């Protein structure tokens, strides 16, 4: 599922993206990296995601697989990032 299509409250992990190098590096430095756990705070324009510290893809604690900050992305970027739902994670 694309990040831009995820509903509010959806919790998932980042699978892959097709971003340019500069944007990908910046997002990675901000904590939005492969296997980072994210929650959709607000879909749309801008797409606001919270990168979460704690559990990973299968619910196992992964340490700092992410962090607890909000990142706003323009819709065009959110359409180029794919996420997968975490089994058992609650959504809104």
């Amino acid at each position, binding site marked *: 599922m694309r990040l831009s299509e995820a509903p*509010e*409250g959806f*919790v998932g992990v980042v699978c892959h993206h097709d971003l340019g190098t*500069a*944007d990908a*590096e*910046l*997002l*990675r*430095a*901000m*904590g939005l*990296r492969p296997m980072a756990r994210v*929650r959709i*705070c*607000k879909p749309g*324009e*801008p797409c*606001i995601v*919270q*990168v*979460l*510290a*704690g*559990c990973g893809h299968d*619910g196992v*604690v*992964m*340490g*700092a*697989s*992410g*962090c*607890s*900050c*909000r*990142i*706003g*992305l*323009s819709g*065009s*970027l959110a359409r180029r990032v794919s996420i997968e739902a*975490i089994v*058992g*994670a*609650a*959504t*809104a």
Partner: protein
Amino acid sequence: MTEAGCDRCGCGGSGAGPGMAVDPVATPWRVALLGNPNTGKTTLFNRLCGLRHKTSNFPGTTQESRIGVVRPRGESSSAARPIHLVDLPGVYSLELAQSESEVCREVLAGNLSPRGEPVGSPDAVCVVVDGTNLARNLLMVGEALSRRLPTVVAVNMIDAARRGGIRIDPVELERQLGCGVVECSARTGEGLEGLPEAMRTARVPNRTPPGSREGIESWADRVHELCVGHRGLADRVAVDRGAASRGDPDGARAREVTSSGPGGWRPTATDRIDRVCTHPLLGMGVFAAVMSGLLFVVFQIATYPMEWIDSIFSGNAGWVAAWQPAWLAELTGGGLRGLVEHAMPEGILRDLLSGGVVSGIGATLIFVPQIALMFFLISLLEDTGYLARAAFLMDRLFRPFGLPGHSFVPLLSSHACALPGIMATRTIPDRRQRLLTILVAPFMTCSARLPVYVLVTTLLFRDRPLLAAVAFVGCYALGAAAGLVSALVIGRTLLRGPDRPMILELPTYRPPSLRTALVTTWDRSIVFLKNAGTNILAISIVLWWLGTYPKVDPPEEVVQLRQLAAEIRDGRLADSSPHDSAFVTPGEGLGVAPFKDRESSARELEDRADRIESADGKARSFAGRLGRAMQPVFAPLGYDWQLTVGVVTSFAAREVFVSTMAVIVTGSDEADGEGILSEIGAAKRDDGSPVFTAATCWSLLVYYVLAMQCLPTLAVTARESGGLKWAMLQLAWMSGLAYLSALAVYQGLGLAGVT
């Protein structure tokens, strides 16, 4: 510069490099302050240094730096050694291809230092991390540790982390990082007393994180896992309720951070506020309300200190005069300018000081209240977290024109003055978009345009204040629209390139820090005075010279008036009765009104003679001659030689236009009075027709909305864009657009029968 860490890494050095004798008290201990954005780094710097800092920049870059002094405490020699804290730009990674990251890399490598500071590696690095967001911040710590410099980690916002149920084990963290760790809260001051000593005793870390990006990420994961724990959800709820009942904002921040476990999510306060503030319609409503309030406060409240400054430099004005005792009013009736004229003998030096230097300083200082207030409010808004949301809202509006949402704050600042607005573009990550913003920032209506708007809208809509207000607002809208369209045109021609989509961290909403806002305001104002003040002062002196020289003999009319005044005062004219035909005749021939007594009549004639002489002197000065020579260029816009002189002399500073017109038309530069405005409005051309027709006024208004009439802005553009060519492009583009638009307005109105 001392060699970093020689006294800590076991090499036996003195800490000053081979062969160098160091006075441990006199030599400052230089510490680089490093960290992610939104970690409270600036608040920490302000808390440690207060106003004991200076703003500088890194040579060859546009990056600003602050260097603060942490005063020593205690009796030991190490404690007596002052700390120079170098505030580096906030970055997410040292390895990014951004100018901020490059500056940090070079400073840590010892290749770059703030201007005025010795080049060399810092003696220590203090990495500021957010205790509520340690996971990501550890990546930066890993990058810093790999530099092998004496390091200390300041875990900031520790109070908020505790309240949110985040438990950080400082002993384990210190062991894992191999360097000192200090838990602190810059907002409350908790733990800060031990930080300076920890900086002085920082050691080279005895552990080195892996070099690769993936390696640092895995290392950070492991350190986080070992050192950070969360309370159970039930504990957190109890903590949340306690914090909520105390109205605790940091507790709210921490709650939002920790309510993240699977199944435990619920919308937080920040989520709910964001739904409104980033909504396409509701968000714009909130934005309009916030910006209206901000601009209202800036332009309403700043009026008072501006009036004080005006009264200090130019003389008593408004209600200030009413509060002064009579003796003080007598002494300062002409302000500093009057005092100089009163205290010094006549001559070039007196003219230079009163007409050039004092006026120039006054012209600089009068803008400081608006600029300071604008920065203060912007800083408060930024601290709440709202400005990041506003940037996203504006991104939607700006993006079709090729500008990013990051341009919003620079363009907003430009409504006070383009200089700080252009300097604020340093926060725009993409160079192309930054250049675009710099080029169009001067289109925003700055304070210096306001006197021209007041004059022309008053002339256009006398006794119709509502229409004058609409025209005034229209000027703001025209300037903003011209800026956006110019960005579109330049972005699709000279500065073509891909648009970088917007990525921005959105901090949790929180109450702003007054201390941070005040220190930021102080910093910005000082930078403005340093950058703009010297330019404006120099320009004022040059303009004074152009408008004053060459000295010419007074015209025949002036000689006759003064002769008449002398005869009246000496009693050579028979009687001062206004009905005495023998007396009134000569005065009437020169347009003198009947008068009551000898002295006042003589004074009236002398004042009139002074005004005529001043206007004649201005017309025959270098500036006047230049205006006459250039009049054919501006004739198609409806300007006669007097207006052309006003336009030409205000080329370097547009606010000069009104005072120049006042001098040319009335011989006095006291342009604030209603009577003076009337006199300017009644000015005649050489053929007897009015200077200010409706068509001329509209043409003039459009010209001043669009024209680049500000030399300091050009200087700052050249510096910030890294080349004179961009400043020249800005000048040519804005002047060309202003000329053609004013031409179209004047000729169009002429065709429509409006004169």
